[in-house]
């Protein structure tokens, strides 16, 4: 077996599956292969993190809508596949369901007008709800500073990523030399200071564009620095 084949079995090993013989064979390979051992360590870290933080993740805002979108996508893909393979002796119902629809100019115009009408109504309704301070409306783009909830949400999302990479760094940190540890800690403090300062500014002035940018930059810097040092 080569490394690729061993790495395919690692997930089972970490989850406690696989026969005793398999486990022994993989363990003996891991003792001599640094690359595979690192992959195993990654799996262990990911599994450990997931166990530790089970139930802490945000629920999907609209679970049913998400499932509907997924099932629609799957159905659409199945329909394309089915259309590509219409059997010669298929029934008329089957052919009707799998035919490609060709519309006349009038039909097409009516369809377009209907779509425009529906989209306009939906847009107007959404705008009304937005401007009337609808509690469930959130913009999709970066919303830091528009209100405290979105700021906290965004910060919490990043914090989960930061917590993951921080755990990875802490695993390896003991192996670093004291100078490297000190350098890393000092620089992390610089980024944390920038984060805290911008958060403070945003608390006072939620629409401050400079603090928003610094907060985003500092969060990205922090994740990037942790990622870089997680491999050390």
């Amino acid at each position, binding site marked *: 077996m080569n490394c690729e084949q061993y790495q395919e079995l690692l997930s089972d090993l970490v989850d406690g599956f696989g026969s005793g013989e398999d486990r022994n064979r993989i363990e003996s390979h891991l003792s001599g292969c*640094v690359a595979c051992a*690192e992959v195993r360590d990654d799996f262990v870290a990911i599994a450990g993190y997931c166990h530790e933080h089970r139930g802490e993740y945000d629920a999907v805002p609209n679970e049913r809508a998400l499932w509907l979108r997924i099932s629609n996508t799957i159905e659409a893909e199945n329909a394309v596949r089915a259309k590509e393979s219409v059997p010669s002796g298929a029934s008329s119902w089957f052919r009707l369901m799998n035919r490609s629809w060709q519309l006349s100019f009038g039909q097409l115009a009516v369809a377009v007008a209907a779509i425009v009408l529906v989209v306009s109504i939906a847009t107007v309704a959404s705008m009304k709800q937005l401007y009337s301070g609808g509690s469930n409306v959130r913009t999709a783009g970066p919303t830091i500073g528009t209100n405290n909830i979105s700021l906290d949400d965004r910060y919490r999302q990043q914090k989960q990523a930061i917590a993951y990479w921080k755990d990875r760094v802490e695993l390896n940190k003991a*192996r670093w*030399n004291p100078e*490297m540890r000190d*350098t*890393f800690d*000092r*620089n992390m403090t*610089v*980024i944390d*200071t*920038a984060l805290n*300062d*911008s958060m403070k*500014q945003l608390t006072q002035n939620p629409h*401050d*564009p*400079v*603090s928003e*940018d*610094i907060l985003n*930059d*500092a969060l990205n*810097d922090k994740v990037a*620095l942790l990622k*870089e*040092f997680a*491999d*050390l």
Partner: protein
Amino acid sequence: MKLFSSATRNWVKSFSVFLLLALTVGAAHLASAQQKVSRHYPAGKNVRLELKNIAGTITVETWARDEIRVTATMDNRKVNFNPRQTDAGLVIDIAADNRGKVDVGDMNFKIELPARSSVDLETRSGQITVSNIQGDLVRAHIWTSGDITLSGINAARVFATNTTGDIYFDGEFSSGGTYEFKSGKGNITLRLPANCGFRLVATAPTKEIKMGPFWHPGMKLVSEGRRITGDVGDGRASVTVTNYQGTINFLRR
């Protein structure tokens, strides 16, 4: 007449011999601990150098020869150092070459290459100094602490970023070029010719942005002066300067 007693003279003699011995042993130990390697690589006029170091200084200079000379001084003799020649130029990745090694130590590089080269330099800590590059790209990134000094630069794209340390740029901005300077904690100084043109976004929460001779009333102060935006000259180059804790200074050449 003898100035010192024979006992004192003997003591001085013994001490001198001991000192000489100690110095010899010390120098030998230092020489054995450090290793210096120098390698040459053929290069065209427009070559690209990529260097990813772990710790130590990186100095890049130009010369009139069509070749690259890499001189590396390493603290640890067991460090893997395997420069790789590619179609575009030369790749040195100390981080990848020594993955899994506990303590690689400092590795100091001096690199000489043709002026029309592009350089992409990165280290986890240590200083980066680049002089007289006239190629397409100059990128200097220090993940943690270290100063960046870029002088005599005339490149279309320049990126200089660190977390702690000063950044100094002395060069020209090409029309249509992109220039980004970012430090977490340090002073950023840009020394530019009087006739240069660029569109600026300079951000420093400390409010210490000194535009010097490049200031004009058309420039806009944002968030109580923590950001300055505006065009200087023809405004054809895009310049972004960001500093979390420190000053931003513009100087005229």
